[in-house]
């Protein structure tokens, strides 16, 4: 149990670090910049309590916000994503629930399940993030375009991470 906590805490800092140092330098065409730090929320154990999920999401977003000089956009989006996670998990649950000792990963539940689950969460995170950041109704198409584009890129990177980093 302690190992799982420890692993998640280390993952928390590594993902923030990787986001700021590597993925924040990928900015293509003025519209694409992948936000892969949300992988932390996606990979949390099934058994996590609601308060743990929300609070860690809050501090994850706050950390990213502080380092990217943005006032609260990422915090708000990540908290929303954490809030939606239990409902998404519930609606995609296998017939007899999630197995004890398993984690939400491709290794346990297959590519199809993981892709659906992660892309939906990333989509809502990005939609809320870009809506808050742009915050103009006249730019609704810009918001949608950035959301779709970045969801695909972030989703692809996060799914690939299942094959190269989180193999098991």
């Amino acid at each position, binding site marked *: 149990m302690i190992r799982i906590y420890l692993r998640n805490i280390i993952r928390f800092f590594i993902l923030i670090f990787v986001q*700021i*140092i590597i993925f*924040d*330098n990928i*900015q*293509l065409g*003025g*519209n*694409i*910049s992948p936000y892969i730090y949300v992988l932390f929320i996606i990979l949390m154990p099934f058994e996590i309590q*609601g*308060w743990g999920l*929300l*609070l860690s*999401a*809050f501090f994850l*977003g*706050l950390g990213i*916000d*502080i*380092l*990217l*000089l*943005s*006032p*609260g*956009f990422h*915090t*708000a989006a990540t*908290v*929303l994503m*954490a*809030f939606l996670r*239990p409902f998404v998990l519930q609606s995609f649950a296998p017939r007899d629930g999630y197995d004890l000792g398993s984690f939400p990963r491709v290794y346990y539940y297959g590519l199809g399940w993981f892709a659906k689950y992660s892309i939906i969460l990333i989509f809502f995170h990005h939609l809320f993030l870009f809506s*808050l*950041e*742009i915050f*103009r109704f006249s*730019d609704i198409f*810009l918001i949608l375009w950035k959301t779709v584009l970045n969801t695909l890129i972030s989703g692809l990177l996060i799914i690939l991470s299942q094959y190269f980093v989180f193999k098991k």
Partner: protein
Amino acid sequence: MRTLFRLIVKNYFVLLFLLLEGISLALVFQYNPFHKSFFLTFSRNMTNGMNTRISTIRDYFFLQEENERLNNENVYLRNKLSDSTSIVYLSYPNYEDTIGFSNNNRFSFKPGEIVKNSISRQYNYITIKIGEADSIAANMAVISSEGIVGMVMETSKNFSTVQPLINRNSKVGAKIRGNDYFGILFWDGRNPEIVQLSEIPVHVEIQVGDTIVTSGYSSIYPKDLPIGVIKEFQKGQGNFYTIDVRLFVNFRTINHVMVINNFLQKEQKELEREISYD
């Protein structure tokens, strides 16, 4: 009372969500200069050492372009040298004249290197590796060899944070070269190559391709620094045009900048403040 308590425990997930979401949204909408400078200082302390190392790697990818740009600038400056009759509207002295500064000599230029840059957000910031140790302070103008980049927001010993033109908070006084009508340059957040110029009245004759330069009325930017050319324009609300300006500076590939120190900025600001108090 017990029912209420049970209700709270039962729905704590939703309530905690609303609380945390409320805090973050308060952060977004209460974003004031104090928080900004707190964020800026904290963030800079955390990441700058690392960013410097990354930017040395990043520099290699743009070496070719950077060389071309420097070469062009060399040619431009050499032409200025031989042509003694031309009016030098922008001078690049590499020394600081601390005694008698005439009007032509009230600015000094210091080179800086960009260590972190962003273009895909609405509130973009640039971090440059030059700071208080080189007497850089807030509100100094930052330019590149092609045109203006933005202004210094915050400084630490060796680094400064710059608010570029492509930040939704940016406002710059600009005018059309030739007829000297001036307006305000801002960014609508859509395209990092295009900014918008407002408050040019419709009776002014403008054309696609007209050059936009700084107006020089603020104490930050010197006069006549190039910004961009008019890409397209149309009649907007009221009797003003909405003008799209294509920037000279390419924020995707920009690497080296110069910070302009205006020796008379303090004096001008003090005078302007006195007037506004009257």
